């Protein structure tokens, strides 16, 4: 079973995403911020990271930079979740190596389809 790391400071979002992915047959590891996410990533083998942008302590873009700078995690695909689409922010995420982005609120079927494709 493939594991997906869900990094979001909203417990509600984490629960929604986790429920959807678990029903789709994925294992889910949750983290409440970027720093927690990096720690979870160091201890788990994950096929995909779902990453919120705005988070306390270490935001999504900074976490993305760090995991792409690490050769051990650089190849893990990253799906960004964003509330609003700011061109500079999305461009930075693309440049940093994010595989895709989805605007919140997320449609469950779209989320599962995206995860199926990116984690394949």
């Amino acid at each position: 079973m493939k594991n997906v790391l869900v990094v979001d400071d909203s417990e509600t979002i984490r629960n929604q995403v986790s429920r959807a992915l678990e029903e789709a047959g994925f294992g889910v590891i949750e983290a409440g911020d970027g720093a927690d996410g990096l720690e979870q990533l160091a201890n788990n083998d994950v096929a995909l990271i779902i990453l919120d942008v705005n988070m306390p302590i270490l935001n999504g873009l900074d976490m993305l930079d760090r995991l792409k700078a690490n050769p051990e995690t650089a190849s893990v695909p990253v799906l960004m979740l964003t509330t609003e689409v700011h061109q500079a922010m999305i461009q930075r995420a693309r440049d940093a190596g994010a595989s895709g982005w989805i605007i919140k609120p997320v449609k469950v079927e779209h989320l599962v389809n995206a995860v199926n494709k990116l984690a394949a």
Partner: protein
Amino acid sequence: MPINDNNKPRRLFLPLGTRMAVPIVLLVAVVALGAYFGLVRTSRVTAMQSKQAAAEMVVKLTARSIMPAVVFADETEMKRVVADLAGSPDVTDVELWGNDPKAAADETVPLVEFHRDGGGAIGRPSEAKADLAIVSDSVKVLEPIISPEGSTVAMLAVRLSTAREVAALDQLSRQILYVSIGSALCFILALLLVLHSLVLAPIQRLQLSAQRLAEGNEEGANELAVSHSRIEDEVVRLGTAFNDMAEAVRDRERRLGVRNTDLKLILDSVEQGFLTALPDGTLLPERSKVVESWLGELPNDCTVWELAGRIDPDAAGWAQMAWLQVVDGLMPVEVALDQLPKRLVNESRHFDLAYHPVNSDGALERMIIVLTDVTADVERQRALAQQHEFSVLVDQFVSDRHAFADFWGEGTRLVERILDADLNHEAAEAVRRDIHTLKGTARSFGLSRLAALCHDLEDSLQGRGEALPTAQELAQLRDAWDSLRRRMDPIIKGAGAFVEISQMEYEDLMSSVKGALPHAHIERKLRELRQEPTSWRLKRAANTLQLLAKRLSKAPFDVSIEHNNLRLPSVQFAQFWGVLPHVLNNAADHGIESDERRVELGKPVPGRIQLATRSVGGELVVEVSDDGAGIDWGAVRELAKVRNLPHATQRDLERVILTDGISSKNSVTQFSGRGVGLAAVATVVQAMGGRIEVESRPNEGTTWRLRIPGTRIQTGDRSESSSSERTRNELEKEERIGRKPEASVG
């Protein structure tokens, strides 16, 4: 249709004439050179052979003529003959070798010799036989001189120069060269002329025709391609085939043109804008006319995001990023498409955008974009909603002005707090609460649009996992509230200039005037009219009960009101009226049974609820009675035991159900049952120095009586006194004899 040159592979242009002329020239040159060298060689060989034959003949004749002189050893004659031979300018050397009488028998010596300047010795012949050899630029001839007896008596060696023949041959070679070159050039020229005339010129015309056809100049193409020659060859047939092809192209163009015109007519006639985009985001120039009427003329290389930016400049970056995500193909296409802007708004128009990808071999080839102006729909829905809300507000305002004032004041405060909140996480929880409260308040006043907006806002916040609304969401809330305020402000301000009195209060006041009561008394009465009639509050309570009946799927309650013309200071009682809905919820939800249950019990449907305000013994009594199931005191007692609360007397049990966290009902519904509301009512009543009484009998109903002491209650012409009982009795009597209650909702 113009051809896109960008797709053509870049090739070096080498004209066909050049490509054909080069081998022709080379071939002719080779042939000319071959002919030249052949002729020169043949001439040389022929000349030399002639020279040899002549030399051989001359030497033979000389040998015969000199033979007698040799036989007779006549040296003079020998010299004369040699001298005759040397007279020929071609003879350069002559040597006559014979036996020397003074020498050994077999040894030959030159008997006579002649050497011209520049010549040289020929040398003793090695053999006594005839020989001929061409050496360099001369011919050497050896001829034996045979005596009449048949013996060789001497050898005549002659060398003849070939210089004259060589000079003649050189001249001849030059002439041959000139003729060869001239002939070759003429031949090449003739070939090229024929080539150009029969092949190149027609092909060039065809090429120009094809170019004109590509440029859309069909007549010009036809004119060039037509051949008027009577002779047919492959090139002429090619031209004919081209004409047929051009005609077929024209025919297809005509049919396509008709179809395109029909399609464009359709596209230009529909109220939607159809556009096509290439994978790089560039919009093709073929598009519905209406698009440019909405957005102005678009540049030729306009992109999808520039189109979005024409509508909403803030959406351009969003559209570009989303488009890149669609094109790069990493995400599922339906997910990537869902991230594109679907509704864009500018100052005056609302547009819906729909995207339909057209794929080829799994790759995006085109994207059909359908742009729909939904401004009219949005405005119509907005106008309908505004009209509906306005009607609701006016109804509320007319039916209960004070309640409306409360709502308006609270709504204004909530909206201002939400809009003015600092957008930080500390304010988030308060903002979320305020939005929730505004939603409930709006819903209770029938403002479905505002309530829906708040609901969507809550959903959006929850969906994003964030507590703070976006600037756009706040702007929507501000717009919605401002819309209500613009309509209601004039009415509210206008209404503030009036004091409403009932007919009964008017008659009472009139009788005071007619009865010549003291001026101070009349003045007090007039001043008291500015206080709030309880009738308004009870009417609002009745409305609330009917809303609850609808939500609880119960038949509209039979609500009766008995207000007794009381008036209360609105400010002091604001909190009291604010908690009264908890009592109403309890009666509607847990008091009145479901319609089915009431039928089973033989009770009338709908359930009956009585609301009353009375002045009794210096106390204000607010009463809410229902004919519902009543309180299960046994269950309350058991609950009190579990919670270790006093439960010995009925009064103890009444206190228990007013305790925080204890409900009079076991189940919790959306509206009541958490045991919080009645405790809140008790807190407010106790803070006003009052108390709550409850009377309840199983299957007969429950009466909640809220008593507030020491209240300055106005009762029309009857100031608060012991006469309040009489007043109630009188009113009840009036109702019993057929006068309808003043308000009966539902």
